[in-house]
C-alpha cells in the first residue's frame, strides 16, 4: 500500500506542475464577478444566485478535470511509455492504478476544497450574518467531490480497454445518463413491453445515480442536510468506486503494453 501512496503523490505533483490548479483563478474571477453582479441585480436572493452559480462552476470545472485527466491517467503513461520503467520495479499493476486514482482524487479534493472556501467567502460577502444552515454549502462541495471520484473511477476503467477519445465519450455518456437514473427508475412502466421494463429497471440500478449528489437547492436556501444522507452518499460512492476500480484492475492486469 505504501507504493500506492508514492504513485498518488507523484500524480498529484504532475497535476500541480501541469498547472491543473490554475482553474482556481478562473473560479475566483467567476465568484468575484457573481458577488458584485448579484448584489446589484437580485434583491433578497443574492445567496441563492451565488450558491447556485458557485456550486455549478465547482461541479463543471471538476468534471472537466475528472474526465479529461482521468482518461489520461493510464493512457498517457502507455502512449509515452513512462509506465515501462515503473512496472519493471516491484509495483503491482493494481498498486499503480490505485495510486493514479488516489492522486487525481487528491488533486480534486484540493481543488474543490479551495473553491468551496472561495464560494463561502463570496456568500459571507453578500450575507454578513451567517446562520448554521450556511454550512450546507460545504456538504454540497463534499458531495461534488464524491461524484467526481466516481467519474474518475469510470474514466480510469474505460481508458484501460479503449482509446482515450472513446473513453471520454463513454465517461461523459454515463455521467449524463446517470443524472437521469432516478427518472429512469420512476418511468411509467405500463407504456413499455415487459422486456423493456425489466431492462430499464436493471439499468436504473446499475448506472451511478449522480443526481443523489446534487443538493444545490438545499445549499442555496441554507437548509441542513441529515447526517444519515451524508453517510449514505459516502458509502454509495465508496462501494461504487470499489466495484468500478476492481473492474479496471481486472482489465489492466491482463493488458499487454505496446
Amino acid at each position, binding site marked *: 500500500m505504501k507504493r500506492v501512496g508514492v504513485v498518488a503523490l507523484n500524480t498529484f505533483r*504532475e497535476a500541480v506542475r501541469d498547472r491543473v490548479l490554475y482553474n482556481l483563478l478562473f473560479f475566483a474571477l467567476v465568484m468575484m464577478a457573481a458577488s458584485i453582479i448579484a448584489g446589484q441585480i437580485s434583491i433578497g436572493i443574492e445567496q441563492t444566485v451565488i450558491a447556485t452559480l458557485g456550486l455549478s462552476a465547482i461541479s463543471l470545472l471538476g468534471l472537466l478535470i475528472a474526465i479529461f485527466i482521468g482518461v489520461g491517467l493510464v493512457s498517457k503513461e502507455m502512449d509515452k511509455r513512462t509506465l*515501462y*520503467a515503473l512496472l519493471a*520495479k516491484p509495483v503491482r499493476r493494481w498498486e499503480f492504478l490505485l495510486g493514479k486514482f488516489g492522486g487525481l482524487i487528491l488533486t480534486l479534493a484540493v481543488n474543490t476544497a479551495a473553491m468551496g472556501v472561495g464560494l463561502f467567502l463570496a456568500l459571507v460577502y453578500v450575507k454578513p450574518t451567517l446562520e448554521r444552515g450556511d454550512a450546507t454549502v460545504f456538504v454540497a462541495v463534499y458531495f461534488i467531490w464524491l461524484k467526481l471520484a466516481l467519474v474518475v473511477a469510470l474514466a480510469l476503467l474505460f481508458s484501460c480497454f479503449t482509446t482515450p477519445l472513446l473513453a471520454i465519450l463513454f465517461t461523459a455518456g454515463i455521467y449524463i445518463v446517470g443524472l437521469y437514473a432516478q427518472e429512469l427508475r420512476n418511468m411509467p412502466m405500463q407504456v413499455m413491453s415487459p422486456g423493456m421494463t425489466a431492462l430499464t429497471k436493471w439499468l436504473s440500478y446499475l448506472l451511478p445515480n449522480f443526481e443523489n449528489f446534487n443538493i444545490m437547492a438545499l445549499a442555496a436556501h441554507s437548509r441542513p442536510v441529515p447526517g444519515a444522507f451524508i453517510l449514505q452518499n459516502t458509502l454509495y460512492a465508496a462501494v461504487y468506486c470499489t466495484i468500478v476500480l476492481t473492474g479496471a484492475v481486472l482489465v489492466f492486469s*491482463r493488458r499487454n503494453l505496446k
Partner: protein
Amino acid sequence: MGAAAIETENLTKLYPHGFLNLKKRISLEGLNMQVETGEIFGFIGPNGAGKSTTIKLLMRLIFPTAGSARILGKPISDIEMHRDVGYLPEQPYFYDYLTATELLDYFARIHDMTAAGRKERVQQMLKKVGLETAGKIQLRKYSKGMLQRVGMAQAILHDPQLVILDEPMSGLDPVGRREVRDMILDLKREGKTVMFSTHILSDAEMLCDRVGVIVGGKLRGVGAPAQLVDMKAQGMEILFELTGQSTVPLLAKATRTGDRYRLQVPEPDLYGAIEQLRAAGATILSVSQVRATLEEFFMDLVEADRAQAAAVEVSGK
C-alpha cells in the same frame, strides 16, 4: 558460472491481427534460452526480430501466449523478482515534469529505500552517469543522450543482481556509447549479470561473454561470439606482391591495392594456389586464416530467414 540468471522455456508470443483478430502474427516462437549468472549476454538481431518482445515478456509488460520464464530462480509472475532486476527500456522516456533527482528519488521510494539512503544513492547514481550538475533540471529539457543516462541510473539505482538493457547504445554518439560500454563492464566487475539487446554487432562482439542471435522470432544460435563465427566455413587469405603483367587465372579473383594483392581461397586449395602464384613470379608476403565476423554470421542468418519467408510466400500463392 553458477545457476542461470534467466531461463526461458518455450516462451512464445503471438499477436492477433486482421479481421476480428483471427490471424496470428508470430513475434517470438518457442524461445529456450539461459543467461548464466555473472555473464554479459548480448541479444542480437535485426529490427523486429523479437528482442524487445523477449525483454518485455521477462519484465511482464506483455504476457506470453505460451511458455514460461524464471529470473534469478523465481517465476516472472513473482513481483519480488523485480527487487533484484534493473531494466532500461528502449528509447526511454520518463515523467518530463520531474528533475532527474526527483525521478530517481521517486523510483527509490518505490524500492522502499530509506530517506537517508535515497538521498545518498541518488547523488551517487547521478555522478556515475555524469549528470551531477544536471540533477535539478526538468527532464523535458534533456537531450536523448541525457535521458539514456537517466535510464541507466534508474536501472542500477537499487543495486540489482541482474540488469536488462534494451538497446542501451541506440541513438548515442560515440562518446555516449563508450560510456555505456564502460558501465556494462563495471557491472560485470561488480559481479552483476547483464543482458542487453542490440543490433550493433561490434558492441556485442566487444562486450559479451555469450550472444544469442534471434531472427524472425526464433533463436538461431547461442554461444561465445568467437564460437559462433567458427561455425562458419573458414578460408585462407594470401597476401602477395606481383609486378608486371601475368596471365595467372587466380589473379581475377584477387583484390588489388597497388602492386599488392589479396586472395581468399578455401583451405584445401591453399598450397596449389601458392605454387601457381610463385610460378607466375609473385612474392608471397603472408598467409593468414580468414575469421568470419559476427556480422557475416548474422547476415547469413538474416538472409536465410528472408529466403525462407519468400519461399513460404511463393508456395502459399
